[in-house]
């Protein structure tokens, strides 16, 4: 406990780390306000830049991008009715109408304060929940891990974009991608087509850059000449005492909702903000104001989406199961830097883990200051012509992908997965399930193999393990629950 508190506090006395967090917060906000460039794309682009950093500094950079870009999406959501990130989509419902009424500064002030509260609350929960979950996870053996990854994959069905079936197909395709390369036990080459650079499998980093950054580039080409309406704003206003009285319950509720949604494997800030917004509306005494500039609507969405960032780090670090697209990249970052995600991280690397949590706390404070004093400036960045911005993204993508392994094959992978991601999205398939599937794929196969060895090839013995059964039931409910529920409701109505 003392080690954890010391590590948390040490962040605030480490000038280099503070500088990194400060610089990354600026980059994160810039990324967040640029439509199309969300936290996930930003983290994918920045990952290669962290190669020479220490593991703590590298993950702190990625976590800061996650936190600050998630918040910054609200700036453009309020000022130009274009959410900088998908997590800020719900903020446009009331943020832009309030801005059009000449209260853009007030809308941004509410968004900044709610986001900070949600973010800080979720990091505090993270500090307490992660070690507790790690204690439970110590008991996990391969059958439990196998069931847990199946649960994680089943939760892909509810990732926001695309339908459940499409998301599952994407997830299965991602798991298949993880089988490319030499098989772990027998060293038999699978789907390598004689290319020995693929011996250890597809690199996570180029696939992520391709799926998130390069496919987004192709998607953005459709709106290359679109003009935006910009709402003028004098300065960001701190919420008044009346505003606080009106929103405090919403902020508390949405922080709880966001943290909980974030903890669920494969759920993220977008889902959290939508639920946070709808719950704010459901509990509000002024429902008629929603959609017309309700400050409760802004607070509900913003507290929830930033709370989800801390929540999503819990399964990522404790179980090695990413809670969102961005945490999938943070997970890759952990692996690239030699930190093995899982419960043992909390015994072997306690100090580093709490320094990462402390960095997230510091990032929340930094974006509070920048949100209050520089939001207007950041908002103007969103007016950079995309005919200049996206070629820069192209350059960063290909150089970043090459940098990790100095391999030209990785550039091919970026380009190919960019095109795959573009066509997938065109037909309504989200790319995040493919990325999560790729990351979890090895875990599924290895734990299935180990379970089979433990049970002497009798796979059904997995169902004799209570925890494994618990996760498999959750997976079943996650997949079939909505259909069963709809059927029951229909039956009752009939």
């Amino acid at each position, binding site marked *: 406990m003392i080690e954890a508190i010391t590590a948390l506090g040490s962040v605030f006395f480490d000038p280099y780390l503070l500088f990194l967090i400060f610089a990354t917060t600026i980059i994160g906000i810039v990324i967040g306000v640029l439509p199309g460039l969300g936290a996930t794309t930003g983290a994918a682009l920045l990952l290669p830049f962290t190669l020479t950093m220490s593991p703590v500094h590298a993950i702190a950079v990625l976590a800061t991008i996650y936190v600050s870009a998630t918040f910054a999406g609200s700036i453009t959501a309020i000022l130009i009715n274009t959410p900088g990130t998908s997590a800020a989509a719900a903020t446009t419902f009331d943020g832009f109408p309030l801005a059009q009424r000449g209260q853009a500064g007030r809308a941004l002030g509410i968004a900044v304060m709610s986001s900070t509260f949600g973010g800080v609350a979720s990091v505090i929960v993270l500090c307490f929940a992660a070690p507790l979950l790690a204690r439970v996870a110590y008991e996990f053996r391969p059958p439990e891990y196998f069931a847990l990854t199946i649960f994680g994959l089943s939760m892909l069905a509810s990732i926001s974009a695309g339908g459940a079936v499409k998301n599952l197909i994407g997830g299965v395709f991602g798991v298949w991608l993880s089988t490319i390369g030499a098989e772990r*036990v*027998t060293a038999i080459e*699978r789907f390598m087509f004689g290319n020995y650079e693929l011996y250890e499998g597809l690199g996570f980093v180029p696939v992520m850059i391709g799926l998130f950054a390069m496919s987004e*580039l192709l998607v953005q080409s459709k709106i290359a000449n679109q003009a935006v309406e910009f709402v003028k704003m004098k300065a960001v206003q701190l919420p008044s005492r009346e505003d606080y009285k009106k929103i405090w319950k919403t902020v508390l509720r949405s922080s709880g909702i966001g943290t909980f949604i974030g903890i669920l494997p494969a759920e993220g800030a977008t889902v959290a903000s939508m639920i946070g917004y709808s719950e704010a509306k459901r509990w509000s005494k002024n429902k008629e104001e929603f959609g017309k500039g309700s400050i409760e609507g802004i607070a509900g969405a913003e507290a929830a989406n930033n709370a989800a960032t801390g929540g999503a780090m819990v399964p990522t670090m404790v179980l090695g199961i990413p809670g969102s697209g961005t945490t999938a990249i943070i997970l890759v970052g952990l692996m690239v830097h030699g930190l093995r995600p899982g419960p043992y991280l909390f015994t072997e690397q306690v100090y580093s883990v709490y320094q990462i949590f402390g960095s997230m706390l510091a990032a929340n404070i930094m974006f509070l200051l920048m949100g209050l004093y520089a939001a207007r400036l950041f908002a103007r960045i969103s007016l950079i012509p995309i005919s200049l911005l996206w070629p820069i993204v192209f350059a960063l993508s290909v150089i970043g992908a*090459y940098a990790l392994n100095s391999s030209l094959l990785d550039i091919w992978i970026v380009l190919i997965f960019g095109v795959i991601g573009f066509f997938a999205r065109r037909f309504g398939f989200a790319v995040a399930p493919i990325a999560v599937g790729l990351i979890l794929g090895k875990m599924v196969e290895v734990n299935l193999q180990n379970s089979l060895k433990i049970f002497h090839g009798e796979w059904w013995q997995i169902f004799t393990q209570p925890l494994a059964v618990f996760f498999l039931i959750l997976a079943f409910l996650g997949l079939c629950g909505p259909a069963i529920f709809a059927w029951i409701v229909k039956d009752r109505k009939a």
Partner: protein
Amino acid sequence: MSIKSQIPTIFLTLISLVIIYLALQLKLSPPMIVGDSMQPRAFPIFLMVLNLILTAVLAIQIYRNPPKEPAPILRITWLTMVLMVLFYALTVSIDMFVGISVVMFLMSLVWGQRNILVALANAILTPFFVFLLFDMVLRIRFPRGLITNWYYG
């Protein structure tokens, strides 16, 4: 229902069948190595069978509720894809940074940038600074080519 709306399911079915075929061509490992575990081909085949089942469900969903046909892909998007191929060709044949600069410049113009000087400055300065950052700070060696040969000596 038009056949066009079933393009994704047809494509997914074909891909799954091709992968199953390729998996069946994989070598079998001796039982003493595999032990109680499974053959390397088993897991990919299981995944693709699962994919075929999910694709069948998707085909039924599309049949019952056909989705809105996506808008045709714009010329600008096709041109961007062509530029990606051009980038790779230039990287392999001339130099990675020549490829990046040329493609960045052309991409800016294709995407509607009218000021050629701005596009040119962006195409030259961005790769230059990114190169310096990766070379000096991150110590990354880039592939040999026209410019890198001159720089590395």
